[in-house]
C-alpha cells in the first residue's frame, strides 16, 4: 500500500528538481494536445521549441523576449518572497512605458547622450509610481493588493490607449494610434548589426546580480525571507512591515517600468497600443518557475520566452493560433504548482499485511 506522508522539512533537492519535472510534463502534455489536434507530436514540438531558436536570428529573438520577462520576474521575486502579491506588473510596465515614452517624445527632434539615461530613469520612476498605489493602499488602508494591482493593469492600458489615440498621437501619422518615432538618442543601442537584441539585456543582468546580492547578503533580504515564512515572526522580530511592503513594491515596479522602457526604446521605438504581449503576467510564471532565485529566473525566462517564439513559428508552419503559447505557459505553471506537492509530502510504501 502507498501512503502519503507529510515531510518533516521541505526537500531542498526536490525544490530545484520540480521546475525541470514541470517542463518535462508540459512537453508530454503538449505533445498529446498536438496529437489530438492531428499533428505529429514530435514534429510539432520541434517546430515549437527547436526551430525558432536554431539560428543566430532566432537566438537573438529569444534573448529579446527573455529580457523583459527576466527583469520583471526579478522584481516580482522581491514581492513574492515577502508575501506580497503584486500581480499587476503588466500595469507597472505599461505605466513605465507611458512615462518614459512621454519623456522621449519631449526630445523627439533632439539628439544627445543625456537623453537615454533620462528616458530610462523616467520609466523606472513611472513603474514605481504605479506600484506604489497598491502598496500604499495595502499598508494604510488594509486593501487587498491582488485585486488593486490587477484592476490597475486595465486602467494603465486604457490611459495608454487614450494617449496614443488622442493627445500624443503623431501629428503626421494619418490618425494611426501611435506616437512619433523617438529620436535615435532615445533608443537603446543594438548589440549586433542586423539583430534586434539590444542593450536592455544588461539592465536585466544587472537586476539579476543586484537581487542576488540583496537576497543573500543583506539584512533586508533576511527580513524578506522571514516575512515570507511567517508574518507573525517578522512582527515579533520587530521588522518594520509597512516600510518593507512599500519597498518591495517599489523595486518590483521599477523593474517592470524598466522592462517597459526596454520595449519602447528597444524594438518598438515609439508608443502604440500594444507595448507588451502580456509580459507582466507571463513573468509571474517565470518568477515561480525560477523558484524566486535570480539564477533560476534567468533559465526560466529563457524557457518561457521560447513559448512566445514557438507560438509564432507554429502559427506560420502549422497554421495554429499564436495563443498556443499560452497553453504551454498555463501548463508549465499547473505542473509546477502540482509538483510542489512533492516538496511537502512524500509517498511511502507501507506493508499492508502488518
Amino acid at each position, binding site marked *: 500500500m502507498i501512503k502519503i506522508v507529510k515531510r518533516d522539512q521541505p526537500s531542498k533537492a526536490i525544490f530545484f528538481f520540480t521546475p525541470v519535472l514541470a517542463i518535462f510534463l508540459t512537453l508530454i502534455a503538449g505533445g498529446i*494536445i498536438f496529437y489530438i489536434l492531428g499533428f505529429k507530436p514530435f514534429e510539432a514540438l520541434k517546430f515549437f521549441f527547436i526551430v525558432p531558436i536554431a539560428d543566430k536570428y532566432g537566438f537573438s529573438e529569444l534573448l529579446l523576449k527573455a529580457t523583459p520577462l527576466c527583469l520583471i520576474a526579478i522584481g516580482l521575486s522581491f514581492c513574492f518572497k515577502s508575501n506580497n502579491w503584486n500581480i499587476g506588473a503588466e500595469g507597472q510596465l505599461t505605466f513605465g512605458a507611458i512615462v518614459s515614452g512621454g519623456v522621449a517624445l519631449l526630445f523627439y527632434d533632439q539628439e544627445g547622450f543625456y537623453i537615454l539615461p533620462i528616458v530610462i530613469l523616467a520609466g523606472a520612476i513611472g513603474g514605481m509610481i504605479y506600484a506604489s498605489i497598491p502598496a500604499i493602499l495595502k499598508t494604510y488602508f488594509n*486593501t487587498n493588493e491582488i*485585486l488593486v494591482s490587477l484592476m*490597475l493593469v486595465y486602467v494603465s492600458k486604457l490611459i495608454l490607449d487614450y494617449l496614443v489615440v*488622442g493627445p500624443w498621437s503623431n501629428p503626421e501619422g494619418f490618425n494611426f494610434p501611435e506616437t512619433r518615432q523617438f529620436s535615435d538618442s532615445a533608443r537603446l543601442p543594438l548589440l549586433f548589426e542586423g539583430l534586434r537584441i539590444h542593450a536592455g539585456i544588461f539592465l536585466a543582468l544587472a537586476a539579476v546580480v543586484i537581487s542576488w546580492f540583496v537576497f543573500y547578503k543583506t539584512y533586508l533580504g533576511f527580513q524578506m525571507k522571514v516575512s515570507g515564512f511567517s508574518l507573525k515572526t517578522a512582527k515579533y522580530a520587530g521588522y518594520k512591515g509597512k516600510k518593507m511592503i512599500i519597498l518591495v513594491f517599489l523595486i518590483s515596479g521599477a523593474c517592470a517600468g524598466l522592462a517597459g522602457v526596454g520595449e519602447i526604446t528597444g524594438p518598438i521605438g515609439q508608443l502604440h497600443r500594444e507595448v507588451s504581449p502580456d509580459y507582466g503576467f507571463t513573468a509571474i510564471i517565470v518568477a515561480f518557475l525560477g523558484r524566486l532565485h535570480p539564477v533560476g529566473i534567468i533559465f526560466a525566462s529563457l524557457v518561457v520566452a521560447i513559448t512566445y517564439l514557438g507560438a509564432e513559428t507554429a502559427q506560420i508552419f502549422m497554421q495554429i493560433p499564436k*495563443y498556443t503559447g499560452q497553453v504551454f*505557459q498555463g501548463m508549465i505553471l499547473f505542473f509546477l504548482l*502540482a509538483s510542489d*506537492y512533492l516538496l511537502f509530502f512524500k509517498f511511502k510504501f507501507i506493508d499492508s499485511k502488518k
Partner: protein
Amino acid sequence: MIIDVNFVGLIIASIMASAVPLILASCGELITERSGVLNLGVEGMMIIGAISGFALMTVTGSLIIAVFGAMLAGVLISTIFAFLTQTLITNHVATGLALTIFGIGISAMIGKNFVGIPGKEFPVLFEGLKDTIPLLSPILFGHSIVFYFAFALPFITSYFLKKTKIGLIVRAVGDSPESASNQGINVRLVRYACILYGGAMCGLAGAYLSMIYTPQWIENMTGGRGWIALALVVFSTWNPIKILIGAMIFGGLTIIQFHMQAIGVRIPVQFLTALPYIVTIIVLVVISRDSRKIRLSTPSSLGKSFHKDN
C-alpha cells in the same frame, strides 16, 4: 428634445443584455469566494464556455446540448483548479492565473476551425408581447431564457446563502474552515462543489456571449469581462443583490459610451471604460479601511489554503 419612451426602453434592455454575462460569472464566483476560495480563473473559464458552447452548437446543431455542454466544460476546467488548490494545496492566486492563461490559449486552439462561421438564432421568450406596454415591453419581453435566468440568479443566490442549510455551510466553510471542520463538515468537499459550481456559471456566461450576445466565435472574445466579473464580486462586498446593481452600472457604462459619442459628449471613451476598475478600487479601499466592515463582508479565509492534517 423629444425622448422616445420605447428608445429609452431599448437602451435599458441593451444595458441589461450586456450585464448578463457579468451577473452569471459574478454570482458563480461569489459562491466560490464565499467558501473561501479565490479563483482568478474566471476569464479562462468564461472563454472555455464560449468556445465549447459555440462549437457544440455548430457540430450538434442542438442549442440545449450546447448550453449544457458549455456549463460542463466550465465544470471540467474548474476541476483542474479544484484538484490543484484543494487536493494538492497549491496557491490560489497562481493557480487561478494559470487557469486564465491556459483557458485563453486552449480556447483559441479549439476555436481555430470555428472562426468566421455564422452563429444560430437563439429563441426568445414572450416575443408576442413586445409592443404591449410602452417603455417596459422591450425591457421585459423578447429575451433568451438565459437572460431571465441571469436576472433571477442574484435573488436565488441570496436566498441560498441566507436561508438554506447548505448555504449556511458554505458560509461557515469560508468564514472559519477550522470550526466548520470541527463540526464535522468536509471542508474540502464543500470547496470542491463551490469551485465546480463557479465553473458552471462562468461556462454559461461564456456561452451567452458566443451564442446569444454576439453569436460567433472570435479569439479572446470575452475581452476582459472575467476580470470585471471578479471586480464586481468585490464591488458587491460579496452580496449577490449588489452584484445586480453593479452589473447594471458596469454594463451600462459600456453601452452609454456608444450613445454619448453619438450625441457628441466629449468624455474620452477610455475614461468610461476605466471607470468600473477605478470604482472597484475605491469600494475596496472604503470597505477595507474599516476592519470591522471587511470582517463582516469578506469571507475571512478567502484565498487561504486549508489542510486538515490527518
